[in-house]
């Protein structure tokens, strides 16, 4: 972890001011200086931790805590943050490996990482299968005889399991990791191209995004349908994150520090908020011009709607503006739980998915009361933080006892 941002190398290493979950406060002088040895970009950890908490809450049935999640206040949600930061950190860590050790080593490391994510996904699927099988055998309610038909896949476990291993059969809420795996598989290529011509790479990514929309390209899933998160569209966020990490953020400094950007962002966020408001207060619905509605809806999550992407950009632009990387609060112990979760994102993400299954299960088996519901959400967050702390403690002591070497880089890319 200490070797993340130390030596100056061929690629432009983003400086603290430029290295947030979106580009920087354009104070040009500070964005050129290289980060001090061992300096971590804490804002990345903070916001990835936040994204993990929000994803966990969103995966539980709605409760009052759901009202704290950003998807209720605009178009984008925690997934955008997660994928962007993942692209950013992955490019940062493996981009360095590419320069220091060459393509083969870097690609091997990326693939090892992708394999870890794959194993994690299969592990979660196994737990899911156990839960579903239990529900299917114990649950009988004539009100839901139709919905219980979803369990029919259990009649063909052979096909289902093979399709799950091929990432084609994915239960609800298990869509992010397959997306992440595909993006990681593409990362070596992205990095090589990025090193050669960063702007061209970004342009190609935008082109792929546009082509995906134009020709309606998708990844099919089993038994039918498409991937909930279309990698061909969502790669845009990932590549954009990588582009920012490899110097794009610094070059965008001027744009980001301009007041025009700030006001455009604020205006867009406020407008998005009002549109979201009409979803919850239907009486406001007629305030929206019908033509605007027809143009705007549906706001597509599968293909990362432009409105969602723009919403994320606006959020990010404002965030880097109001939250400088040297903000003392980043070192506060109140934010420590979030930071720790963000530093071990793969483990904590999986734990979050597991806890949301468990939470569903408890709610179903015990009772569906609002108080219990809130308690489960809070317990989940406490468990996530505690486990993140435990992992961090373990790594720390393991690193101490091991010889000092160039390891632990995967840590920044989201866990071990």
């Amino acid at each position: 972890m200490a070797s993340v941002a130390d030596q100056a190398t061929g690629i432009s290493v983003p400086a603290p001011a430029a290295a947030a979950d979106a580009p920087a406060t354009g104070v040009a002088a500070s964005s050129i200086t290289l980060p001090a040895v061992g300096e971590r970009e804490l804002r990345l950890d903070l916001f990835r931790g936040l994204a993990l908490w929000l994803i966990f809450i969103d995966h539980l049935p709605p409760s009052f805590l759901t009202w704290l999640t950003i998807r209720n206040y605009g178009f984008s949600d925690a997934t955008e943050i997660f994928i962007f930061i993942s692209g950013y950190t992955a490019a940062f860590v493996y981009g360095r490996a590419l320069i220091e050790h060459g393509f083969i080593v870097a690609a091997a490391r990326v693939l090892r990482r992708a394999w870890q994510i794959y194993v994690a996904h299969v592990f979660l699927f196994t737990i899911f299968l156990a839960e579903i099988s239990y529900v299917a055998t114990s649950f009988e309610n004539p009100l839901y005889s139709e919905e219980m038909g979803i369990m029919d896949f259990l009649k063909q476990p052979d096909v289902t399991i093979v399709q799950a291993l091929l990432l084609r059969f994915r239960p609800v809420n298990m869509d992010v990791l397959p997306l992440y795996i595909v993006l990681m598989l593409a990362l070596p290529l992205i990095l090589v191209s990025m090193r050669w011509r960063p702007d061209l790479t970004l342009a190609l990514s935008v082109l792929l995004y546009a082509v995906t929309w134009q020709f309606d390209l998708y990844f099919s899933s089993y038994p039918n349908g498409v991937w909930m998160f279309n990698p061909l569209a969502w790669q845009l966020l990932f590549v954009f994150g990588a582009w920012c990490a490899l110097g794009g953020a610094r070059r965008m400094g001027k744009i980001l520090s301009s007041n025009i950007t700030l006001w455009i962002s604020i205006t867009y966020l406020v407008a998005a908020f009002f549109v979201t408001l009409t979803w919850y207060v239907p009486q406001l619905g007629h305030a929206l011009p019908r033509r605007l509605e027809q143009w705007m809806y549906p706001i597509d999550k599968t293909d990362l709607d432009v409105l969602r992407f723009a919403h994320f950009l606006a959020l990010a632009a404002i965030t880097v503006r109001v939250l400088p990387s040297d903000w003392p609060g980043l070192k506060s112990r109140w934010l420590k739980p979030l930071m720790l979760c963000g530093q071990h994102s793969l483990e904590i993400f999986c734990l979050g998915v597991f806890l949301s299954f468990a939470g569903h299960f408890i709610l179903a088996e015990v009772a569906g009361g609002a108080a219990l519901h809130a308690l489960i959400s809070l317990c989940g967050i406490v468990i996530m933080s505690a486990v993140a702390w435990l992992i961090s403690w373990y790594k720390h002591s393991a690193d101490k006892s091991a010889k000092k070497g160039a390891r632990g880089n995967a840590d920044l890319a989201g866990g071990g």
Partner: protein
Amino acid sequence: MRSGLLLGLALMILVAGAAFARAEEAETCPVPASLLATESSLPKVAEAVNSGRPLDILVIGSRSSSIGGSQEDAYPSRLQAALKDKLPTATINVSVELQSKQTAEETAAGFVKLMEAKKPTLVVWQTGTVDAMRSLDPDDFHAAVDRGVTALQNAGADVILMNLQYSPRTETMISGSPYMDNMRAAAQEHDIPLFDRFSIMRQWNEQGDFDLFSAVHGPELARRVHDCIGRALSNFIFGAAHLGPAQQN
């Protein structure tokens, strides 16, 4: 600090108590006005009722528009009963066309024939569940709903769309929201009312009217829920057709 804790505890007990009290009077199953409000109207229903002609309603749906074998207890029959209570002098016929395991596209393919045979004043089209379970492309679903509604309207009927059931047990397996979003959009495009069955049932579950998580309830729970849906739907139709509060219960 401690007094705050005590206050919090007292509040929680109050809330729990209130939830229990509401569970007692489960049959009332109130629905907030906002969930029954719609900007779109049902001109043909209004015309039929006001001119004293019979009101023929056709419910087209998948299996969640029925309870097992008993037609009597399912919401279409309850709708008929509730409407007859409200309009004792009118002739009201509710018929049901169940198309289990059919997607919106498959169902809509039969609309022209169906409408020729039945000629209803109002069609309640319950859809989305099968499409969501098969996770079909939401855009294709949108197009199918769009075509279906057009066919129904061309045949001269008012149309209400009805979305999915709130089914907490299968929430981790069925992702309904893209389908419900598309139904809402289709309803807006055609300026027709959308009966938000999902939100209404979720409201009941949250208020404690029904425990929809429960695994043990037999046909009794289903019967009561369908009764409440039938009545809520009758209020919804009344509101959308502007049939006046005088006639409403």
